């Protein structure tokens, strides 16, 4: 009897000790990492990079956790409040201000060598810099313009701009849409605006159009209010034009599968970012053209910024976290990622070698927009979550046909109350 009890005791102790010995086996320090579970190709590329790093590194082991994208930012905030953040954190561009404001990140200046930074795309460094310090680095920047179906554009007799210098004006854009309405098949529509998406899309995609009309989503000089900017006459003019696109049936606020609509030739123009490149290219081949952001009156404007990496203040092994980020910023790693997701590589070396971004390449327009001053960063404010919600509500309301002025006034109220709550 006694020996049985002893045996059970030993087994229990061993069971407790097991996980610990498994960890200590290869003597590596563990570095936790969170990333958003985005598109498949991007996820696979990241998995491959983490495997490579773990195989190469003698000292550190990355332990990744995949978090759903839909409410990624909210889950990060919840973890921050609970003091449960991982070492390495992946986050979308504009949230860096929020996290720096809340003290969730540590600056990277002490780690990043000048040599490394010299090869990084300036827009990435701009995005990660807050109060003169660098807080985040990303492997790629985003590209946002109009994907077009060349066969349909030619059939409608629409001029295809060659670059950012001869982009469409508002009049040309309107007449292009009208002409294309004559060639889209039954059950199709002219312009896909990705209204099936929720969350950040609306401020990322339509904020630039508001700016191109002469308005903005926040007063960028003071960052203290959106009053008079997002509900001023220029923004209202944008809203009325935007609403007319829906009213005339040129686009839809209730798409079922807009990606299939474009790849199967029911839609002539698709307003979506670089992340659809591989899908669209596979479907349309040489018929896929990229049309630069149109000039809607006050100059062409597009969005920029994408997911990037930072080290949290919760991290016990910042050196390990940096080792991983440094590995991710190597040209070879960046190339592996951007080949997979079609984004603009953040390394100048890779960008120069990538023929898709060279003159005449499929996505030359993106690098032109980024280097030619068309791309503007999203506003540097910790109240960005308010801008995101305000824009999402207002764009949906305007698309449904609600009063433009009232919808934009409501967005301003949402943003201003978010700013006020920060100041308290």
């Amino acid at each position, binding site marked *: 009897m006694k020996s049985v009890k002893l045996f059970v005791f030993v087994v229990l102790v061993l069971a407790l000790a097991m996980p610990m010995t498994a960890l200590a086996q290869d003597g590596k320090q563990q570095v936790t990492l969170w990333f958003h579970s985005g598109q498949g190709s991007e996820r696979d590329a990241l998995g491959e990079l983490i495997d490579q790093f773990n195989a190469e590194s003698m000292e550190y082991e990355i332990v990744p956790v995949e978090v759903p994208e839909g*409410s990624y930012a*909210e889950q990060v*905030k*919840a973890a*921050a*409040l609970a*003091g449960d953040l991982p070492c390495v954190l992946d986050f979308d561009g504009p949230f860096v201000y*929020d*996290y720096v*404001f*809340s*003290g*969730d990140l540590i600056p990277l200046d002490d780690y990043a060598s000048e040599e490394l930074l010299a090869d990084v795309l300036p827009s990435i460094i701009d995005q990660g810099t807050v109060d003169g310090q660098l807080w985040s680095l990303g492997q790629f920047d985003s590209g946002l313009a109009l994907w077009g179906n060349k066969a349909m554009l030619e059939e409608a007799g629409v001029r295809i701009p060659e670059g950012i210098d001869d982009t469409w004006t*508002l*009049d040309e854009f*309107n007449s292009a849409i*009208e002409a294309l309405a004559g060639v889209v098949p039954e059950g199709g529509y002219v312009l896909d605006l990705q209204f099936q998406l*929720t969350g950040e899309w609306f401020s990322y995609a339509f904020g630039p159009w508001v700016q191109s009309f002469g308005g903005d989503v926040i007063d960028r000089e003071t960052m203290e209010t959106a*009053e008079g900017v997002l*509900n001023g*006459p220029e923004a*209202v*003019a944008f809203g*009325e*034009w935007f*609403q*007319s*696109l829906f*009213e*005339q049936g040129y686009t*839809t*606020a*209730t798409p*079922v599968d807009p990606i299939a609509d474009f790849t199967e030739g029911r839609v002539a123009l698709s307003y979506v970012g670089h992340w659809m490149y591989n899908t669209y290219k596979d479907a349309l081949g040489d018929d896929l053209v990229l049309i630069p952001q149109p000039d809607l009156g006050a100059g062409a404007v597009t969005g920029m910024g994408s997911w990037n990496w930072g080290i949290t203040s919760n991290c016990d092994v910042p050196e390990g976290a940096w080792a991983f980020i440094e590995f991710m910023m190597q040209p070879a790693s960046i190339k592996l990622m951007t080949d997979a997701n079609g984004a603009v590589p953040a390394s100048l070396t890779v960008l120069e070698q990538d023929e898709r971004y060279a003159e005449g390449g499929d996505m030359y327009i993106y690098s032109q927009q980024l280097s030619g001053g068309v791309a503007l960063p999203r506003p540097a404010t910790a109240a960005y*979550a*308010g801008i995101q*919600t305000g824009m*999402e*509500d207002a764009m*949906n*309301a305007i698309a*449904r*046909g*609600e*009063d*433009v*002025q*009232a919808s934009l*006034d409501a967005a301003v*109220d949402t943003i201003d109350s*978010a700013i006020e*709550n920060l100041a*308290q």
Partner: protein
Amino acid sequence: MHALFERTFRGRQGREFWTAMLMGGPAFLMLVLFMIWPFIRGIDLSTTNQRFDGSVATRLDPWYRNFDQVLSVNAIKLPDLPDVVPYRAPAVGWYRERTPACNQCQSNFSCDITDPDDAVCAENCAQICERGDLIFRWRGRNLDEIGLGEYSEYEIARQVSFGGNHYAIIAKDPLFWKGLLNNFYFALVVVPVQTGLALLLAIVVNQKLPYRNVFRTMYFSPVVTAMVIIAVVWKFLYNPDFGLINEMIQFVTFGQVEGFRWLQSPDMAMPAIMIMSIWQGVGFQMIIFLAGLQDIPEDLYEASSIDGANIWQQFRFITLPMLRNTMIFVVLTTTILAFRLFDQVNVMTPDGGPNESTATMVWYAIRRGWTQSEVGYASAISVVFVVIVLIVSLIQRTVVKSESAIE
């Protein structure tokens, strides 16, 4: 004292006490951990500016500031309509909502009616814009200008006109009040309709029909399916262009009725959610009613039919009174479920629907607390919400009690 202690904790009664504690323990623990403690924390947080992102929270001064923000509501008389109502909204004053035709003209000719250089085009547009229904809206961005500076923190919730005068209901947080009204609207329609329909279904599937178990299962199956999945499917069904429901309406009416813009129009969005919620939930109440129906002794019906009662009299004087307790249970639970409305709204109209017509209180608390990370403010909303549901439940209980006193 000692005797009481002995009686309670020792001997046979004592054993019963300990057994009861042991059996109830996990449930008590769960109640304290997940109901009572969070509620106390919620009250505490509602007086702070706690955020979700780790920044330091402080106690508000005065402590009730969040509650003041949530609850402040007022009404103001608006100035009279001017003779000419402009299209461009001033900071404070009346303007004319643009009709779709007017918008279309503006974008087709891309002319601005306020620009005198563009005369012909402007003339065209002006004519088109004059036609159609005129909707006048009042905008109040700066209430100081018209001597209402004391209301500068308020926003316009709703515009009402009667007796030739125009009024605006203003609130510091209009969305909270809209959510509250939507909750009541939902409960007032769904509770009676769902209860009635459930009773009807229960009576139907209680008949000795062939395959009645198949029908029972069919009516009950939506209840065991996750609400989120049902909401996603119904979102497609409600699609105004390709949705099955509109296609069916067109088919049945031979194309005379075009169908509705279900989730896109302020009038139809809430009814659309109600229809879907009733369809999903009715099976549950049906099962409860079915159990109640089967508890009614058969001889009551036999006796009444000997006395010459018809089917309606049997239903009115036997079935309904015998189902009284079941009915009370069903109405109470349906009411509480109705106030909890969130899942379907969040999936089908994540931004609160057209004109916030499907925003509910739970939806709003989650939007402020989770999406906008204002935990303190969201706690205040939740506390007010709990108090309101408590009052509604107490009123229901009182009504039920006074009814039983009559009988």
